[in-house]
């Protein structure tokens, strides 16, 4: 048993490539659980960060600093009454949240958390992610239509118009990155692992490639991906000041929580696309500049250090807890949580584990950056009006994407063009 595990872990392929159904299942379970956990964490972080941006405290009551608030919320949602409107289309109403959740989670099949840490590597990786995530909008439309109510219908109409508009700009930005993968080898690739390996072999993240061009393509994608996931400032499908709650107005309890789960899973999925295409995927920062065994060691200690800092913060919180009998359980709980984090940090120092975990760590850190940006946008920008939304999509992002695409193609062809000109000259 132990031999089988170590033998697999020392191989350098994903379970899909190795053809191992057992390990693929294990990976799928781990990824699904990890995403659900990070959605829970995001729920708490979003409320806390938004609160701090508005100089409030945020959730403080359930658990120390409201750490158990998301679990309490989840429990509340699970035992809430499940209401289906009398005039609703039952079958479509039932299947809508399932479709949304399934598509959001299926995209993670091809996300490479490391060279070996993906369920599988597909020849059409990025196309698969785009396709499956574009099916998610069907779930939103189904939810809005089947509720048989005006506000949800308006929400889903807005959602479908918005998704179709921004998918084009998103696709153009992605094509720029795919074009860049073909520069050295002559044939590009759509595979997610292949894209990161192309960045490794070209010694640059694609965001810095052809300096303003890679950055512009990334910018187009970064804007379009917020619109694709229906988040502020593009959250018109669920604009609470106009449409009550948009497409999920009629949903309650567990079905509503599925929509919530799917929204955050989709945010994680598009952030992973951005990280894979432009920010070097699982690669650590500065692989060229700060190279060498000492820097490798230093960067591989980052996961453990992060956990140590978190553990230190927890223990500091324990020490600063009010010394009254009512807070005793919370104090002890926070202390145990801090010690647990510290213990995980210690495990991550072990050389074998360290080597194995660092690529996952860097990928997750980059995705976490995008998740923080999502919260920051929500705390900063006012919502767009619908005509402004369409204007941004069609009149700004689409032409920019097209121009960047053409410029990238020309720049990539520059060596061939110049050699052709030199050949013609006498």
């Amino acid at each position, binding site marked *: 048993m132990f031999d089988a595990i170590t033998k697999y872990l020392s191989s350098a392929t994903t379970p*899909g*490539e*190795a*053809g191992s*159904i057992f390990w693929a299942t294990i990976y799928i379970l781990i990824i699904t659980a990890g995403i659900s956990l990070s959605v829970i964490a995001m729920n708490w972080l979003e409320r806390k960060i938004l609160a701090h941006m508005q100089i409030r405290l945020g959730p403080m009551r359930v658990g120390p600093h409201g750490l158990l608030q998301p679990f309490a919320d989840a429990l509340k949602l699970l035992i809430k009454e499940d209401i289906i409107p009398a005039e609703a*289309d039952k079958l*479509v109403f039932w299947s809508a949240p399932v479709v949304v959740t399934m598509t959001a989670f299926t995209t993670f099949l091809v996300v490479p958390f490391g060279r070996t840490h993906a369920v*599988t590597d*597909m*020849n*059409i990786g990025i*196309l*698969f992610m*785009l*396709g*499956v995530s*574009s*099916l998610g*909008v*069907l779930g939103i*439309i*189904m939810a809005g*239509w089947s509720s048989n109510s005006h506000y949800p*219908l308006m929400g*889903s*109409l807005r959602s*479908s*118009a918005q*998704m*179709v508009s921004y*998918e084009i700009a998103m696709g153009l930005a992605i094509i720029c990155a795919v074009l860049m993968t073909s520069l050295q080898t002559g*044939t*590009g*690739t*759509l595979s997610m692992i292949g894209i990161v390996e192309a960045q490794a072999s070209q010694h640059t993240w694609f965001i810095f490639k052809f300096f303003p061009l890679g950055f512009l393509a990334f910018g187009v994608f970064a804007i379009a991906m917020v619109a694709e996931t229906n988040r502020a400032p593009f959250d018109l499908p669920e604009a609470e000041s106009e449409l009550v709650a948009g497409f999920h107005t009629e949903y309650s309890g567990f079905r509503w929580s599925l929509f919530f789960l799917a929204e955050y899973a989709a945010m994680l999925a598009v952030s992973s696309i951005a990280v894979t295409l432009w920010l070097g995927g699982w690669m650590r920062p500065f692989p060229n500049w700060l190279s060498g065994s000492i820097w490798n060691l230093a960067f591989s200690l980052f996961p453990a250090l992060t956990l140590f800092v978190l553990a230190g913060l927890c223990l500091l919180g324990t020490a600063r807890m009010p010394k009254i009998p009512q807070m005793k359980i919370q104090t002890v709980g926070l202390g145990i949580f801090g010690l647990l984090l510290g213990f995980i940090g210690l495990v991550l120092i072990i050389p074998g584990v360290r080597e194995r975990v660092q690529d996952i760590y860097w990928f997750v850190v980059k995705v976490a950056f995008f998740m923080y940006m999502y919260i920051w946008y929500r705390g900063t920008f006012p919502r767009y009006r619908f005509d402004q939304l369409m204007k941004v999509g069609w009149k700004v992002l689409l032409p920019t994407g097209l121009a960047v695409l053409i410029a990238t193609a020309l720049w990539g062809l520059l060596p061939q063009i110049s050699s052709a000109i030199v050949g013609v000259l006498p």
Partner: protein
Amino acid sequence: MIPVATTFFFYFLAVLAIGSAIAVITQRNPVHAALALIVTLLALAGFYLMLYAPFVAGVQIVLYAGGIMVLFLFVIMLVNLEQNIREYQFNKQWLVGTIVALALGGLLLFVYRTGRGTFPTVFYQGYRGLEGDNTQQIGLALYGQYMLPFEIASLLLLVAIVGAVVMAKKRI
């Protein structure tokens, strides 16, 4: 990776595709029909995957299931459905229908009988090499060998787009 349970998946997808295709024409509610059509398209994408054409499967999902069907549903939601549901669903053209169905069936049978040799008897063996660079092969074929037909097709699409804009805009 060696395929598993191909027979099961083939029959599963076949039943799914045919069943949902029948639902497309029998459902009274246009939204239900459109949703059934999406299931058909997804089952077809599954077939493409089984035939080692992942790119075609991906394009099928992105364009048909994710793009065109979203627009279908968008339009259906905008029109008034109440009247549609009450109208008679099939028109009584059974004579013409039977002739067309027989002709199509005959054609399919003819193609199957004459071109049986061109169908691969074993699906995956020999196609393993293609799976690895399916997208690259299609790209090379489209932009190399079939450059002119490809450009003509894109010109056709451009004309269609211009036509749509002319028809939709009141004042040009």
